[in-house]
């Protein structure tokens, strides 16, 4: 059967390296019309890199790209679009200052008289595309005023505005809520029916098994295997991906929760949240669940001193603390692993070890002057515990894959020996192997007596890891569940506002 169907897109022997890293080494990839191919691999396996090669953002050093049997050279994003390749990238890459319609049409806007941009046609086209994916967004709105999910829908609309034969989706569901994810699945079905070849990248196995027809596995920048989804099991895929088998079960945890460590009372903010009160105990993992945009990140950032609440107080151990800056939060033993790694997490441009020691500079210095040996020792210690994959500790963090950057950020906070660690979407975009490692590590930390707040939008993770779960909706706490009540049902209903109505 494979013999009969010709691939639309055929990559052979593609290599691409960055200073110090061989991101891709002679990989191959085939995409077939009307079929979804899942690209699977650990963090840093080279998935996003191949997407960037296909969309003309990176030029491979070796290898051939064929579309419909004809060799092409994709020298720019523009050339790729003209060759019929379009992509929704892992990070949403759009323009805050432009309108939604302009974001969708930038670069290929409809022209009117004198070759000037036809703004009306642009607006109408944008409205049509957005309606097609079930997004209710005003095409005239400034993009910067939209929430993250809406922005993602705009990115999808932009990808669809190009008449493409090949559609690439790089972790498209990471930022979307339940409902939007389902609309995305419908969209993928529609594209399949139109005969487009689809490349789908995701770390979520349920998702892959649901919509993919074929799979291709990369490991460490090399091609490992390909085949039909129907002929493979999850275990086998994982085995191919990591080169070993991994247990997907959440680590067993002893729920011995101690004395209160952090008490938050009536935290409020003019626009972001109101009446946030809860208590966190020693050795506890407290889950925060909610739909995307429920304001969980904002509450956590207030606890961490990024923003100042207009009302409310917080107590750490038995001391009432006023936290107006991150430095004060770190002093109080509260640390935060942000969700937006690229912007808020790692300091790209600085080496790994300097990232790790950044909040602990006091501990690795004497009288304000740094001791390099101590810095390296500290960094070595914590990166090893997290199984960091890197060439050397003095390598620029920006050169690491997303998942490995996340490990550096976690390492930097653990090195401060905090009392409370807040993990905002700790496993978002992390491969299954590292994910299990992060989960095991969290359990270990809790067992050592560290108190953990975990913000997550993945129900299995929330339920599997937490002792207790707080559900947020529109900036307020709507429910707190523990014990028997901790079921997917309760969480979803509370988050969607159904529980209140019932």
């Amino acid at each position: 059967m494979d013999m009969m169907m010709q691939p639309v897109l055929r990559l052979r022997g593609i290599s691409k390296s960055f200073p110090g890293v061989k991101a891709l080494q002679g990989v191959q990839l085939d995409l077939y019309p009307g079929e979804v191919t899942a690209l699977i691999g650990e963090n840093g396996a080279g998935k996003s890199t191949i997407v960037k090669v296909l969309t003309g953002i990176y030029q491979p050093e070796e290898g051939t790209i064929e579309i419909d049997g004809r060799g092409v050279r994709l020298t720019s994003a523009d050339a790729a679009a003209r060759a019929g390749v379009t992509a929704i990238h892992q990070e949403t890459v759009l323009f805050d200052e432009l309108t939604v319609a302009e974001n969708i049409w930038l670069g290929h806007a409809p022209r009117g008289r004198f070759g000037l941009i036809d703004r009306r046609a642009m607006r109408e086209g944008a409205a049509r595309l957005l309606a097609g994916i079930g997004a209710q967004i005003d095409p005239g709105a400034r993009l910067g005023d939209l929430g993250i999910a809406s922005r993602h829908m705009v990115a999808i609309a932009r990808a669809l505005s190009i008449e493409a034969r090949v559609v690439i989706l790089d972790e498209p569901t990471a930022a979307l809520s339940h409902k939007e994810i389902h609309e995305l699945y419908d969209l993928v079905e529609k594209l399949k029916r139109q005969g487009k070849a689809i490349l789908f990248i995701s770390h979520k196995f349920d998702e892959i098994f649901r919509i993919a027809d074929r799979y291709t596995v990369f490991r460490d920048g090399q091609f490992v295997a390909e085949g039909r989804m129907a002929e493979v099991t999850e275990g086998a895929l994982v085995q191919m991906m990591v080169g070993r088998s991994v247990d997907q079960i959440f680590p067993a945890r002893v729920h011995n929760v101690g004395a209160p460590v952090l008490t938050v009372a009536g935290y409020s903010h003019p626009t972001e949240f109101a009446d946030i009160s809860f208590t966190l105990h020693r050795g506890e993992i407290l889950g925060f669940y909610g739909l995307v945009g429920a304001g969980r990140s904002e509450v956590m950032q207030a606890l961490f001193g990024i923003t100042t609440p207009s009302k409310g107080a917080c107590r750490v151990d038995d001391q009432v603390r006023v936290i107006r800056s991150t430095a004060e939060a770190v002093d109080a033993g509260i640390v935060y692993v942000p969700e937006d790694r690229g912007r808020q997490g790692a300091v790209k441009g600085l080496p790994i070890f300097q990232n790790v020691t950044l909040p602990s500079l006091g501990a690795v210095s004497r009288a304000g002057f740094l001791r390099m040996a101590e810095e390296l020792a500290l960094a070595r210690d914590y990166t090893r515990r997290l199984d960091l994959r890197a060439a050397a500790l003095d390598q620029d963090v920006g050169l690491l894959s997303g998942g490995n950057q996340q490990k550096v950020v976690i390492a930097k906070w653990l090195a401060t020996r905090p009392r409370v660690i807040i993990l905002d979407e700790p496993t978002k975009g992390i491969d299954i192997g590292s994910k299990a490692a992060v989960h095991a590590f969290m359990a270990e930390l809790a067992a050592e007596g560290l108190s953990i707040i975990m913000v997550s939008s993945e129900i299995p993770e929330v339920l599997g890891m937490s002792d207790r779960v707080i559900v947020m909706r529109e900036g307020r706490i709507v429910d707190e569940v523990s014990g028997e009540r901790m079921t997917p049902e309760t969480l979803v209903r509370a988050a969607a506002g159904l529980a209140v109505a019932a």
Partner: protein
Amino acid sequence: MTAPVTKPAPRIVADRLHSPLRRALRSWEAILLVVAIAVFIGNTLLSPYFLNAWNLSDATFNFTEKAMIAFAMAMLIVAGEIDLSVASIIALASTAMGLAMTAGAGVPVIVLVGIGTGLICGAVNGVLVAGLGLPSIVVTIGTMSLFRGIAFIVLGDQAFTGYPPEFAYFGQGYVWWVISFELVLFAAFAVIFWAVLHRSTFGRAVYAIGNNATAAAFSGIRVQRVRFILFLLTGVMSGVAAVCLTSRLGSTRPSIATGWELEVVTMVVLGGVNILGGSGTIPGVVLAAVIMGMVTFGFGLLNVPGIVMSIFLGALLIGVIALPRLLRRG
């Protein structure tokens, strides 16, 4: 799902990718050192007057004052900010010293007034940038006019002259033989700034902020405080430069040090500091200062007009930065 839990042994990650020696050889400072040696040899060959202790000593005055500001400016630029008001701070500080002198103050007070004025000006910039969150390039274009404008309001077409004779030491005195006080000050500040930027926790914070201010703030660094201190520091160094320059000129006019801000920035950039922030070193700035001083002095010995000198410096600035990029491509 039935596979057993395995915890593979962590990978060993090396401390360093390349040896420090290899890094040093491939660094910007190495290029600058070659350029500096070339300029030195060129000057020696072109002018019989160059290789003379007193003449070389005179040449150092072409860069010492600017370089002192350049050290602080380098830190500021590494942190992703810039201060274009430094030359105007000199004018205002010099005017304040003149006022103090006319009021009968002694040398120590005059010096303190000069440095103090620099501190206050730096604080004004700092409050506007770090306190109110305004972009520094624009703020300091504004304070550049404001500070010098105040000096003009005070002095108008007048000048302050008649500083006490002992005051002349800062800009005209020699510590030993041909080693001037300014040169010693320059060397001392070079060491201090090197230690602060490259070896202290404060310096580390500066680099972190320059590379990613948001992430630095999310790492518990008091970003705005660091920025404020950097502006204070730049103000103070401008004040110190004002003391030296006023002492060297023996008088104050509101037009003193016109155009220095761009020379200082040029020095910093030539020294390999990334104008967009995040990287750069003090040794680089020291070398750039020496190169600029020797080039201007060498051209001066050949009686080449100053503007040809500035063409050369402009070309050098672009050339030194373009060359590695060209080589990498070709």
